[in-house]
């Protein structure tokens, strides 16, 4: 039985929420006849119960961390405390343009969070404005650009170096900021090839963007050397904070020599992922970059907290208002709940879980291309003869979310596994056993595994034709007929 679209539940004249009594108004007189639309938008017309059944039903066709183990590598799908939601609700009725003296609690929280994040990352100043990780990257790169421009070196420094294992957003960001991107190969140990990096370095390089631990889950052991080389060449070092969950409390990007860092509050600091956002991507910088932070930041003046727009060297603004307050409150709450010791213990157990699951997957016949102590995640490959995609689909039938697949690009048939610290040993054992069972059965019965999944709300979907001839909206029957 096909699950209907909300439009297919619609009936002309049916009413759902009747939010207000609308007064009689001569709209044409007030707004100008020529400004009025001729036909209303064809929004669904459903009663409240149909609405409820529709979205409740959709939610039951969806899995999430709260239903299933979800070890999506590089996404840190940890459990997010429910108290966060109660916390966020306390700050939901504030307008960004209300008198700041009437929002001192909100500003105080932001001010303190700026301080905490600076402390955790080892940076000197933080902006909370960016709306997501990639947005933080853009902000960070624009700060770097502004720094070089202020020193008169912008025209000369047109290159950003990025390892071949980097998150795709790194090169995309650099290119969005007008930079030429050059890829640095990884060495046989999975880390940046230091010699290759040094060869590319020079006065044409604006920045190096690194994730540490990198996307293979490996700590870049030569990070101090890399930082020295970058700085010697006049380049800045950018830290992609997507993997910070591995090391929080244990080591700080600032101490490693990074000049700029972005954080993904929705990964490390327990903001739920929301099916793909919203997130929050604060950026921390060392003192020499502080003048370039976007406006406004929150400053303390005596015992008042103020929005500081007076920053002449600022890169400007990267979004409206001050940041994703709802996410900021959750992150603040999380940090206050855990404290320094709790953050540190979380990171340690995230790393423990990853290493343990890595061993268990080896038991089950999976291959580990870079097999050493990993950090919060690791990259595996299925036994020879099996495709990662098929493994992923078969996992869905067992009620699990698969790892990140086919990333990083430098590993063929990659399965990038990040269990996080909130998963139990039993869950890791069960996952490993299922993966083993799937691999064994898949090798025996290729047709079975290529046909998976069998028990999900829909079976394997045709993505090729969706890309070739995308259908991106519902159309009323008469139009669908006409346009086909």
């Amino acid at each position, binding site marked *: 039985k096909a699950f209907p679209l909300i439009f297919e539940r619609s009936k002309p004249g049916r009413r759902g929420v009747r939010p207000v009594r609308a007064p009689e108004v001569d709209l044409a007189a007030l707004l100008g006849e020529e400004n009025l639309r001729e036909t209303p938008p064809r929004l669904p017309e*459903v009663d409240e119960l149909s609405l409820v059944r529709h979205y409740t039903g*959709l939610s039951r066709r969806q899995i999430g961390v709260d239903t299933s183990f979800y070890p999506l590598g590089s996404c840190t799908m940890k459990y997010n405390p429910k108290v966060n939601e109660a916390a966020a609700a*306390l700050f939901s009725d504030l307008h960004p343009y209300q008198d700041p*003296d009437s929002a001192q609690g909100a500003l105080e929280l932001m001010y303190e969070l700026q301080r905490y994040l600076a402390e955790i990352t080892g940076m000197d100043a933080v902006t909370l404005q960016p*709306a997501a990780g990639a947005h933080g990257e853009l902000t960070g790169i624009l700060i770097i650009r502004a720094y070089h421009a202020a020193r008169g070196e912008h025209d000369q420094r047109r290159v950003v170096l990025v390892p071949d294992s980097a998150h795709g957003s790194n090169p995309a960001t650099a290119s969005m900021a007008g930079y030429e991107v050059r890829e640095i190969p990884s060495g046989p140990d999975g880390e940046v090839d230091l010699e290759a990096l040094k060869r590319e370095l020079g006065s044409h390089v604006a920045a190096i963007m690194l994730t540490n631990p990198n996307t293979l889950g490996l700590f870049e052991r030569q990070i101090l050397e890399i930082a020295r080389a970058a700085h010697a060449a006049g380049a800045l070092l950018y830290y992609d904070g997507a993997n910070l969950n591995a090391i929080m409390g244990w080591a700080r990007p600032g101490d490693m020599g990074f000049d700029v860092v972005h954080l993904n509050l929705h990964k490390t600091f327990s903001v739920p992922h929301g099916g*793909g956002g919203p997130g929050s991507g604060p950026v921390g910088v060392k003192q020499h970059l502080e003048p370039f932070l976007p406006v406004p930041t929150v400053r303390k003046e005596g015992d008042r907290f103020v929005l500081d727009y007076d920053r002449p060297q600022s890169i400007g603004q990267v979004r409206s208002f001050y940041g994703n307050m709802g996410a900021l409150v959750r992150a603040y709450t999380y940090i206050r709940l855990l404290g320094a010791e709790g953050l540190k213990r979380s990171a340690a157990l995230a790393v*423990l879980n990853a290493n343990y699951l890595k061993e268990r997957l080896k038991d089950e016949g999976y291959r580990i291309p870079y097999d050493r102590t990993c950090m919060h995640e690791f990259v595996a490959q299925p036994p020879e003869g099996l495709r990662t995609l098929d493994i992923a689909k078969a996992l869905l039938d067992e009620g699990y979310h698969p790892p990140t697949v086919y990333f990083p690009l430098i590993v063929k048939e990659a399965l990038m596994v990040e269990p996080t610290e909130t998963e139990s040993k039993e869950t890791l054992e069960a996952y490993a056993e299922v993966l083993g069972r799937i691999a064994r059965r898949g090798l025996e019965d290729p047709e079975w595994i290529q046909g998976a999944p069998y028990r999900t709300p829909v079976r*394997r979907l045709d993505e090729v034709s969706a890309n070739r001839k995308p259908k991106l909206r519902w159309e009323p029957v008469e139009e669908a007929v006409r346009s086909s």
Partner: protein
Amino acid sequence: MEYTPHTEDEIRAMLERLGMRELRELFRDIPAELLEPELDLPEPMTEAEVLEHLRALAAKNRPATRAFLGGGVRAHHVPAVVPHLATRAEFVTAYTPYQPEASQGVLQAIFEYQTMIAELTGLEVSNASLYDGATALAEGVLLALRQTRRMRVALSQAVHPEYRRVLKTYLDAIGAEVYELPLEGSRTALAEIPAEVGAVVAQTPNFLGSIERLEPLAEAAHRAGALFVAVVDPISLAILKPPAAYGADIAVGEGQPLGNAMAFGGPHFGFIAVRKALVRQLPGRLVSETRDVDGQRGFVLALSAREQHIRRAKAKSNITTNSQLTALMGAVYLAALGPQGLREVAVRAVANAHTLAERLETIPGVERVTEPPFFNEFVLRLPVEARRVRARLAERGIHAAVPVPEEYGENLALFAATEVHDAADLEQLEAALREVLA
């Protein structure tokens, strides 16, 4: 508090399997001089303690539930059913639907959202959402520049100043130029568009509240080979002409008024819709209908070749996270109200705003700057600085009078009315403003 399930026995057993004796050994790849810095953070708290602390912080704020503040975010009534549904755990704790067979809930919800935005704007294709209205504008303009392969933008001065500031940040990054289309009264003056311009941008109702007539500007843009980008308010589209009807190629806007809390400015969502021809330039996620191997209807992420995780340095945009949950709130809101409910919200706001303007104009020294027709916001010239008026009103428990930047004139303040206000609210504001200005 802590949220880890490990017992000490388990930690020991797991470490043993790794040949380790204590957790710190896991970090042996980290150079010793970096390890275990002292962190100056407050002591951990229990859940009850942290809530008590946050309540104390929140008590230092004055909620703005019936605010007359505008400028992209407004006090609207969010029907209880909207957060009830959108915050179902499965929606909240999933990530981007990379595995469509287990993510039909989120995918279908996006597909429906895309349809609703297309219906509101009259344009063919919407993406799955962007960060906010301002970044949606920036992405819309970048799209236009990519499409036209030009590097110049004509930008109405009546576009929200923060949106203009964000756009400039984005355009600076790629070295594109902006020039401003000046005002004539409270509207954008019609101007010819030079041939090197790739995007022409205007907003309606504009930042000063006036409804713009944009056909001529759109035509001028098209004559010059540029694309026309309209910034619109989603509630207004219940009754005002959809952007497609006056020639917009791209429509963008802020989604907060659709079922999202004001939340001190975020998270909200930005929407963007474009003509079909532009779909492959569109940043962010897109969901397409398709079929499964049994022929059943299903939904998948589509055209992801546009996205950075494949194209990397050649991506259209670096966007990965969108605003799925807040956009879902928007979709549930639109479905909850339907065309009739949304119309009623809009009509009541219009009526309230016009009544309010009439009332406030009668206060000595107060003058309306916004020329009619206007929608639900308007600007008044006050006899004193808006910032001080806002502060004095706030002391009286009323939030109103957003200071308008000096570029538009002195002592200007923006007022908004919405469906939440009733006659008593309007009266109260009038009385308070009289008192403050007396």
